[in-house]
Every structure is written in C-alpha cells, then in structure tokens.
C-alpha cells in the first residue's frame, strides 16, 4: 500500500493533475485515518498602518520517524528528506529574507521572529556526528545539497562563514542522542533572494502551489513586498504516547504595500495621477484645482486578494482535513465591525469573544475564493492593536576611513518596569578584527536611576586569518525604560587581491546580529523564544590597485635587486687608486681623438701663422 502511495505521490509530483491529488487524498484518508493531521496550511492577513498588509503563509506536514528513516515519504518532500538523511541532519532551519521589518510602524514581528532570518540566507542545523571535524564535513555536504535544491549559493558557506553558537539557538525538536549533536550556523548576508528560490520552495509543498492558499504565491508580488521572509524548518517531534514524527514547517511572511501591489503588473511605474484622482485636503485655505495638499499616503485603499496577489485562491488543497479548527485555512485579522464582502467558495467563521478579533474562511477544493476589503481611513498601529516589540536593536558602524572603525549597537527597552535579558549573537568575517578590550556598554539615557550591570557574560571566539570568522555572544540585561549603547573598536584587514570580490569597492556585507530575548513565556505559561535581527552592515575595506600585480612585483624586485646589487658589488670588488685603473677602450678612443684634434688645430693655426 505504502509503495503504491509512493508511486502515486511521485506521479502527482510529475504531472499536475488535480485527480491524482484527490486520489492520493482519498487513499490517505482511507488508510491512515489513525494519524494526526499530516498536512496543514493557513494564510493570515493582517492590515498594517500606512496602507500595508501583512500576509503570513504557513504550511506543515508530518511523517512518522520510521517512515522517514525507511525513505517512505508521503507528505515530506523526498528531495529534501534525502539530502537531510545523507548529511545526517536531525534538525534544520533555513531562512530566506529580503528587506527590513519596520518595528515602529508594524509592531512586533510575526512568529516572534522565530521564523525569520537576517537579510539574505541564514541556515542552522543540528548534525549528528562523532567529532567537530566530521560535523563540519557533513555540514559542507548539507550546504552543497541545499544550494542545489534551493538555487541559492549556500555552497559558499565554508569554514570561515560557519559558527557554533552556544546560547543563541535551542533545538526546537525533541532529540534522543543529544550528546553527539552539533549545532552549526552559517549566513550569507549578501545573497539576493528572488523567484528562483521561491519555485523550489513551492515544489516542496504537497499541493505545489496549485491549490490552497499557496496558489496565491506569485514571485512578482512577493519580491515587490516591503519585507518578506521564507523559512523551512525540519524537526523531530515526539508527542507522549505517539510515535515520533518528523515535521517540516514552511512559512512565507510578507508585508505588502497595498497601493503598490495594486499597480498593474505591466506598468509598475508610479506615474503622477490625473488631477481628478488626487486625494486632497479640501480644508486647506489655499486649496484649489491646481493646488493640492495630498492626504492619500496614510489611508488604506480598498483591496481584494485578486488585487494584492494578482489572483484569487484556487480552492482548498484537498490534503488538509475538512473539519476541525485547523481546517480554516484563510484568516483576516480585522475587527468584526469592519465590513468585508466575501465571494462564494468559503464558509466564514468569526473568532469568539476573548481572543483577538478575526474572521476565518474554510475553503472548498476546486472553488476559487476571494473577498473585497473596502477602503479604510487612517489607522495607527494602536488602533490595529498590534503588539509592540519587547526591545529594539539598531546596529551601525562608526568612524570613517578604510583602516579601522567601530561597531555600535543601541538597545532600547521601552517597558517601564521589567528589564529584558538578551543574548546578542554576532558572527563577523575574519577580515574584520574586533578588539574585545574596547568592548563597552553604557546606558545613554534611562528612567531607572540605580546602578546596573549591563554585560552579564561574553562568549568570544576570535577569528583566525583565512580559517574562521569571529563569533561573539553577549548576554546583556537592559534596564527598564532605558537605552543601552554597546560599542567596540575593530580593525579592517587588507586582503590578497585574489580574495576581493569583483565589486571590491562596494565593500563586504557584515551579517546581521541575532538578538534572542531570554526567559519569556507565552499565554499558556511555557517558555518561548523571541528573536530580533538587526540590519546588515556594509564594511568597506582598503583596496589595493587591482590593475598592477606585475608592476608591483617588478618594482619591488627592482628595489631589492638594487640594494642587493650595490651592496654585494661593494663587498666583492677590490679597491684600486684611480690612476692605477687599466685603461678601457672608451678612454683610449677619447684620448686619441683629443690628440688628433690638437694636431689639427696645430696645423691650422700654423697655416694661419704662415699667411701673416
């Protein structure tokens, strides 16, 4: 039966035909009704201030550990599974991100930042290996495999870009063989995430973005977003009394600017609007037909799925179950007071009292679904009751010049009463040499008078030239309602000219710092992790002149040859007085010619003399 299923699954993956999927779905329900939900998908839409919209997709599928180990994949993507098994990877976290999350406008990050990576590509995994060396070998293998799978240059994550964080990351899964697990972390801050990464990402889904909310995912829209982050998490889960599962969770979060997203794909240029389309503030005294104080930027225009994603939902993915709380795969987080015109193809369910007001729809396979959100006036994020970030971090470089500089990270704790403990994880390239003895933390402004020890602990692994990068983990405690500035100096190494990238004068991108907020608990009281990432930085290095290796070699060698030549010349030759020097040809010639000339003169003068 299972083997049949496999063939079917493969068939489904090859041809895009709904019937295969439905058959598969029926078969699955037929055989494995005993298992917990094996596939789950959900889209949450949350309007944000300034006409933005947060859309976060989530897809989860399970596989029993035994089936996973026996390569008996049903929902778990085979390609990924095989890579993981080959590299002996027990838990994997992969992130693709572009843009910045704007905390002060958009509030707290989705998923508490756990599903988010720094700009570019970030990857960390728990690998099962006897020793570090083997772990590193497997890690490289894993990167090679993933880079092929996701069309990303993950294979550039080598020893120099790999770190082994101690405090910043905890395994999300339940692991039996903790002893031999190695956590490795790599990041490519300069990687540009784009559609070629999205396509393989969708291929991992059972419904391949053909059905379900995944059908909304269109490269043009996603990568025109103000911020987007794709994540792939694989972890083993052991619920008590059940067989252990291997869970793969994929998420895509993006913040769309509705006005921009509504522009026709053919012509994305924001041309000046026609006079009659201007939205002006008529109350202004000077307002007339050619003077207009615009007020359009702050309000949210009307929108529908079709507007912002370019297409409506193409029905439900038949693999997710039909009833139960997890069935409602599309949710819109607006107050009930807000009117929404919904089309056919979905049953609406409103959230009950107590929880945050939202309305969700259960989709029907094969039926398109869309809804219309009317224009809404100016709304700050207070009105949208968005939660605030517990702490804000801003990292910048100080100083100028290509020889040295300083790193300056500013943490602000808005809360008025309780301090926040954080772990700051920085992985720096080896050619940026931090000086730890200059590490200082000072409280720049505070509403909290008493003395406070900011730096609790520092884990520091210095870089070795061309072998490994620097790794800093600082445990900080930020007092309430105060701003803390952490600074240290660094020196910029100058590289061999072959080690520079083609655009050497742009500089190198330094990976964002990962901030983990410690000892936080969620609503149900058990501990949860909250992550924040700073923006990445541009590090400009001193550059040699790339055009003249030959000249340099020649000139330097000349100087050395001159010194060598002159000194050994002096050493080996012996002295003689000037007059003892044996005559050489040149002097002979000169002498004879002189003599000749003298003769000639003599003669002429003589003649002249005779004449008189």
């Amino acid at each position: 039966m299972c083997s049949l299923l496999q063939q079917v699954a493969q068939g489904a993956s090859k041809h895009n035909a709904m019937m295969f999927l439905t058959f598969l779905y029926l078969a699955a329900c037929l055989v494995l009704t005993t298992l917990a939900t094996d596939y789950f998908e959900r889209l949450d839409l949350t309007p944000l201030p300034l006409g933005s919209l947060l859309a976060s997709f989530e897809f989860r599928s399970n596989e029993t550990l035994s089936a996973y180990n026996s390569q008996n994949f049903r929902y778990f993507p085979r390609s990924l599974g095989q890579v993981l098994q080959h590299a002996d990877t027990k838990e994997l976290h992969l992130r693709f991100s572009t843009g910045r999350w704007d905390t002060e406008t958009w509030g707290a990050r989705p998923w508490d930042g756990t599903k988010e990576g720094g700009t570019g590509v970030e990857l960390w995994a728990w690998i099962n290996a006897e020793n570090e060396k083997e772990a590193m070998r497997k890690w490289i293998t894993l990167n090679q495999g993933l880079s092929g799978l996701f069309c990303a240059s993950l294979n550039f994550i080598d020893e120099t870009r790999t770190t082994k964080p101690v405090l910043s990351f905890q395994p999300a899964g339940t692991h039996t063989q903790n002893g031999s697990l190695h956590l490795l972390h790599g990041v490519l801050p300069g990687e540009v995430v784009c559609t070629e990464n999205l396509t393989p990402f969708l291929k991992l889904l059972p419904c391949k973005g053909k059905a379900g909310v995944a059908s909304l995912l269109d490269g043009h829209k996603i990568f025109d977003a103000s911020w987007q982050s794709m994540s792939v998490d694989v972890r083993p889960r052991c619920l008590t009394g059940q067989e252990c599962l291997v869970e793969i969770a994929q998420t895509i979060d993006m913040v769309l600017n509705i006005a921009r997203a509504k522009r026709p794909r053919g012509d994305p240029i924001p041309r000046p609007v026609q006079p009659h389309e201007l939205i002006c503030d008529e109350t202004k005294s000077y307002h007339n037909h050619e003077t207009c104080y615009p007020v359009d930027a702050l309000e949210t225009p009307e929108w529908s799925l079709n507007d912002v994603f370019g297409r409506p939902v193409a029905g439900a993915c038949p693999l997710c179950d039909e009833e139960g709380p997890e069935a409602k795969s599309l949710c819109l987080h607006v107050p009930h007071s807000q009117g929404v015109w919904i089309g056919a193809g979905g049953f609406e369910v409103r959230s009950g009292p107590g929880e945050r007001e939202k309305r969700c729809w259960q989709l029907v396979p094969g039926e398109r679904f869309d809804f219309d959100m009317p224009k809404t006036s100016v709304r700050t994020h207070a009105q949208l009751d968005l939660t605030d970030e517990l702490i804000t971090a801003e990292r910048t470089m100080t100083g100028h010049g290509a020889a040295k500089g300083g790193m300056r990270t500013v943490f602000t704790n808005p809360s008025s009463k309780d301090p926040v403990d954080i772990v700051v994880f920085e992985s720096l390239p080896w050619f940026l040499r931090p000086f730890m003895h200059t590490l200082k933390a000072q409280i720049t402004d505070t509403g909290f008078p008493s003395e406070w020890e900011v730096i609790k602990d520092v884990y520091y692994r210095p870089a070795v030239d061309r072998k490994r990068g620097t790794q800093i983990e600082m445990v900080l405690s930020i007092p309430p309602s105060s701003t803390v500035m952490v600074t240290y100096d660094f020196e910029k190494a100058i590289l061999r000219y072959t080690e520079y990238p083609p655009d050497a004068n742009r500089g190198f991108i330094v990976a964002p710092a990962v901030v983990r907020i410690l000892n936080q608990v969620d609503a149900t009281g058990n501990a949860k992790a909250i992550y924040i990432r700073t923006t990445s930085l541009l590090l400009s290095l001193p550059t040699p002149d790339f055009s003249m290796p030959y000249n340099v070699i020649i000139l330097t060698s000349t100087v050395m040859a001159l010194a060598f030549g002159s000194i050994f010349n002096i050493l080996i030759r012996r002295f003689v007085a000037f007059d003892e020097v044996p005559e050489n040809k040149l002097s002979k010639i000169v002498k004879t010619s002189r003599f000749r000339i003298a003769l000639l003169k003599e003669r002429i003068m003589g003649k002249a003399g005779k004449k008189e």
Partner: protein
Amino acid sequence: MGLLRSSLSNLRTSPRLLAVPPYISLLCMLGGIIWILLLPLDEYSRRTYISENALLPGQVHTYFHGTEQNIFRAYYHEVADVLEVQTKTAEDGSQQYMKATPAHRNERIRSIFHNSGIKTASQSYKYNVGGQELHGENVYGIVHAPRGDGTESIVIVAPIENFEKQLNTNGVTLLLTLARYFSRWSLWSKDIILLVTPDTSAGPQAWIDAYLSQHNPETVSSLTLKSGAIQGVIVIDYPFRHLFHELHISYDGINGQLPNLDLINTAISISSSQCGIPTLLQSQHRYAKPEHQHHYLNRLKVLGHGMRNQAIGHSTGAHSVFMPYHIDAITLTAIGQGREDEMAFGRVVESLTRSINNLLEKFHQSFFFYLLLQNTRFVSIGTYLPSAMAVGAGFTVMAIYLWLKSGYEQREQGKEQITKPTERDDGSQDKIERALADPNITNEQLLKQPSAGGVDRVKTKVWKSVDRHIALPAALLAILYLTSLVPMAILVTAEHETLLTRTGALCTVIIMVPVGLSFILADNTYLVDTNILFGPSTAAISANGVPKDLPEVGLITTDSSPPLDPSTRLTQFHAILKALSLLVLGLQITVLATLNFSLSMFLGVLCSPLAFTGYYPSSPLRARASLISIVLFNPFVITNFAIMGAKLAGYYDDSFGMKEVLRQWLEAVSFGWSVWGAWGVPVGVFCVWLPAWIVAAIGVMSSFIADEDGTIKNKVEKVKEDMKGGVQKVQKAAVRDSSQVRKRKK
C-alpha cells in the same frame, strides 16, 4: 665610468657650477607659474568623460511632472508660511510682521514628511566659536528602500538659508515634494535620506558628524534614526520664486578636497543633455558670458576661482562638509531669470538620484584630483602637479646650493684666505664678503681680486672643507617652527571681540622677532660651538658635500679642522640656517602639494622671493633688495594687499572698511578651524610661511647689523627706520643704492 666620475669631480669644483643653482631655482619657480598659466589651453586640458559605467546618466525617464506640481504648490504654501516673514493684519488693521519659531518650523516640516508616510527625526546642535554660541536643529526623514537592506543610502539636503544667506523656500519645498514622490517608487536599492538644515555651515557638519558618531555628545546630539553608508549627497538650492535659467554646480570641499569627477560630470550631462538646462561652475555667471566659456581668459578665471577656493579650504555650500569623510557631494543652485521651473529642477535631481542609485560600488573610478576649467574640460593631477613640484624643487635647489657653499671654501695651504676669481660668478659673491669681513685681508688684496682669476688658476687653488656647525641653526630653526604654533593657537582660539587687537599685537611682536634675533646673533660670542651636545648628528652631516676627491679630505676630520674666524662663522651660520629652512620649506611645499595643491602653489609663489634673500653684509644693493622683498612678502602686508584686491574686485561694498574685512576673514578662519577642522590657511601661514619669512628676515636684518667691527650701533637706527618707514622708504633707499651702483660702475 671612470671618465665620467673624474669629469664629475672636476665639475664639482668649478666655480661656474657654483654660480648656476640660483638660476636653476629661479627657473623652476617661474616655470611652475608659467605652467599653471598654460593649463587652460586645449593642449593641456582634457574633455570630461564618465568612467563609471553603472551611472548611466540620463538613461532613465523622469516622471516628476503633472500633478506633482499641484502638490508642490500646496507644500510651498505650507513651507513659506513657516519660513518667510508673514504680514498679518491685526484687528485694528495694523500690519504686523511675524516669523515662525524654529521649533514651529521644524514641526511643520516633520508633519509634511509624516504626511507622506516617511520616518522623521530631528537633531539639535550648538557650537561655540570665538565666544559666540551658534545653535540650531536639523530635521531629516528617511525613505526606506522597500526591498533594500539598509546598507547604503543617498542624502538630499536643502538648507533653509543658503550659502549667500538667502531663504531657500523653493528648495525646501522641492525636497519635500521629491520625498513624497520618491517614497512611491519601489526600485530604490539605497535608502534616501532627506535632510533640512537651518544653514549651510554648521548644520550639515553636525549632522554628518553625528551620523558617523564622530561628534561630541555634549554639544551635538546623536541621531536617533540612521541608515547605511552614504554613497552620494545632492544639495538643492533654489533661493527665489521666479523661473530660473541655469544650474550652478559648486563642488569644493573642506580643506580643498574634491568630490569624484564622475558625480559632477553626471550632474552636468543630466542637466544639460537630458533636461536642457545649461550649467555653470565657480560662479562663472559673474564674469563670463555663456558663449565665451571656452575662451582662455574665462577658463583661467574659473581655474583661479577653483584654486582660490581649494587653497582657502572653507565651505562653499552644504556639500563641502561631507568631503572630508570621503562622501562625494555637490550643490545645485538655480540661477538667473529664465523659463525653467521647479519641476525641471526636480527632474534633474530625480535623474541624478536614479544614477547614484544605479551605483554598485562607491564612487572610485574617475578622478579625485582635478582642476575644472569649464563644465566640459578639466586638468588632471598628472598635468598640473609638476608646477607645484617645480616650485618646491626651486627651494630645495637653493637649499642644497647654500649647503654646499657653507661646507667649504677656497684657501691656499696655510691660514690666509684667497678668494676665487669673480668674473660672471655671483655664486662666490659671499666669498668676497667673507674676505671683506675678514680683517686680515688688506685692501690691495681686495683690489687685486677681480684681476685674479681664470679657470686654470682655480685648478691650482685647493678646496679647504670646513666642518659645518649645524647645531645652533638647527636648534634655532626647530624653536622657530615650534613657537610658530603659538600665534596660530592664539588666533584660532581668540574671542571675536579681541581678534583684531590680538592680531595687531602679534604683528608687532612677529616683526620685532627677526630684528631682535639678528641683534643677538650679530654678537659672534653667541655662536659658541654646541657641537658637544649634538656631536654625532653634527658629524653625521658635517662632511656632506665635501668633494671626496680633494687631497686634504683624508686629513680633515670633524674636530681637527682649523677653527673659523668669527665673521666666517657668522656667514656660515646664516648660510646653514637659510639652507635648512629652505630645505624644510621645499619639503612642506611638496607634501602640501599632494594634500592641497592650490594651497601649496600659492604658498610656494608667495615664499619664492624668500629663497633669494640672504645675508649680504657687504653688498648694500642686494641687502636692500632683500629687505624690500621681505617687507613686501611678509604675511601681513600680503594680507592687506589681498583685502584691497578683494574690495577692488567688488566682493565687499564700500561700507566695509579694511578692518571690517580683516575681522570677517579672521572670524571665518577661526570658525573654519573649530567647526570644520579647516587647517589649510592657518597652518599654511603660521607653520610654513611665517617661519620661512622670519629666517629670511633674520638673514637680511643681520646683513644690516652685523659687520666686521663694532659698527653695529649706527646700523641699528637705520634698520629700525627702514622697518618703520615700510615700503616706500625702502624703495627710495633702493633707488638711491642703484644710483650709487651706477656711480660705482663709472
């Protein structure tokens, strides 16, 4: 080889060669100046071109038109309301004039930013210059590149008050409109920072300092909102309401640093090619008709303006302060009465911003050292640097010449001096002086000398090398250079009230320094041999330039050479002092030429006469000529001339007296020093020019004071009155001398 060496050794000793160096150095200096004058010719300058391919100037369509203008008009009302003086009619019908407070002003600007959904912040600063406090508040907003990672940024600045202290209402409005317009594009790869500063001098400085955390947190508050590395800066300056005709591009930075030529070229080509707006440089509109820009004279004027700005090294607009941090910046100023409206200006800025946005690497391709002659022609460093180097070389040649001369003299075996033949031989002039100064040479010998000579006879003469006692001159020079820092410190830190008085005091003191010193030195007993102290170093140099092939060299060792008679010691002392100071001067000029070409050029030219003044106790003509030149070419006299020139050129109206102008300049210097860190002028004047001048002056004064025997007294009065009498008197004296000379000739 051997031949060559022997001929060289002959050359070394030949009197002709000793006569040559002064001419060489004169040639160098003149050559340097002429070189500069040649630059504007087509043969020496080049057409500008864009070497960074990523810029693609003018390749993009600009969409800043249409209803954006309606918004501009609305914003203009908003901005003018808070920037310009409003006339309100009170209830009783009386007109009352009111101006919004800075706080209110910034609040309005921030609200407009906010209205377009842009994050804003403000930064307050205060500087204390010369006892006067100067404070203000910058407002800025950041348009986040929607898909960018915030590693790079472009800055657009609009000062509320532009460089000429005119109100830049249109510019600020344009900035705000552009901000709203830019925030709707999603193609930005770099953040765009929009900065509104109260002025062009202190505001931008405070902002960029804080942006790079180079600021002093007590006086300048830190920035709460930051972005990535700044790739380029554009300053918008549109200080009037009516339509404009051309765009003026100013680019000079602090301390004469220049932005990458690509940025200027891009701006020019966008403005003139894409938008059809003519461009001007170095306020050409003041002196050149557009159609005459390519004429030699106009190019020369542009060159002159450029070099002047570079040499002074002060701000020429809000862009200047970014240059020291290696951030390329220019100011675009609307000029003239024409038919281009603010939208056209906006399109230029849009296109320019798009070009910078295209950059993959920071500006590095094109030139950083150049002199612009016209908006399409420039001179690159390779072409213009030789001039300054030649001037510097001129000093070095003189230094070496004096050094050699101080090193040895002609004698016959035995103590009695015999001087070289002197036809056509200025170089050995001071030999005669020495002979004159030497009591044990009788008049007959003196009379004999002119007849004595002939090159062949020189061969029979022997060169006696004397060891140089450099300790005292070296020490004196070191002290002079160190103390020259004191007047500089006094001036740049002075309270503005006391500036003039302090300057006056300084002048008198400094003028008196050489006189006093020359009195002290005139008394030979002060020339004690300080060899003991600086023994090794003296020895190390004492024999340089001694022709190694002379017979006695073997016998001479630093201590065994016969002691010199006082007057010779005095001559030698002055020669060495001058040589060292000229050496240092040449060195400074050369080094400066690499840091701030124009400054070193001007200094070189101003110091050039000092190279030829000297210690001529017994030739009144030369002594007086030297006196004239040191009186003419001392910093204070030149400053006065400069002020007169400036007033004649019409930079200042007649209401300004000399004093006023001087005060202004001094205040500018101290402001530049304390706010911008502009070191060019003070260092150039006080650490390069002044010491060299003082040394020269010492030499000249001494030649009036010191003499063979106790005739110091009567000379003193003469010198003093010469000093008092200043220029005219000295000139008279010179005339008198020349007549005397004629008499002598007869």
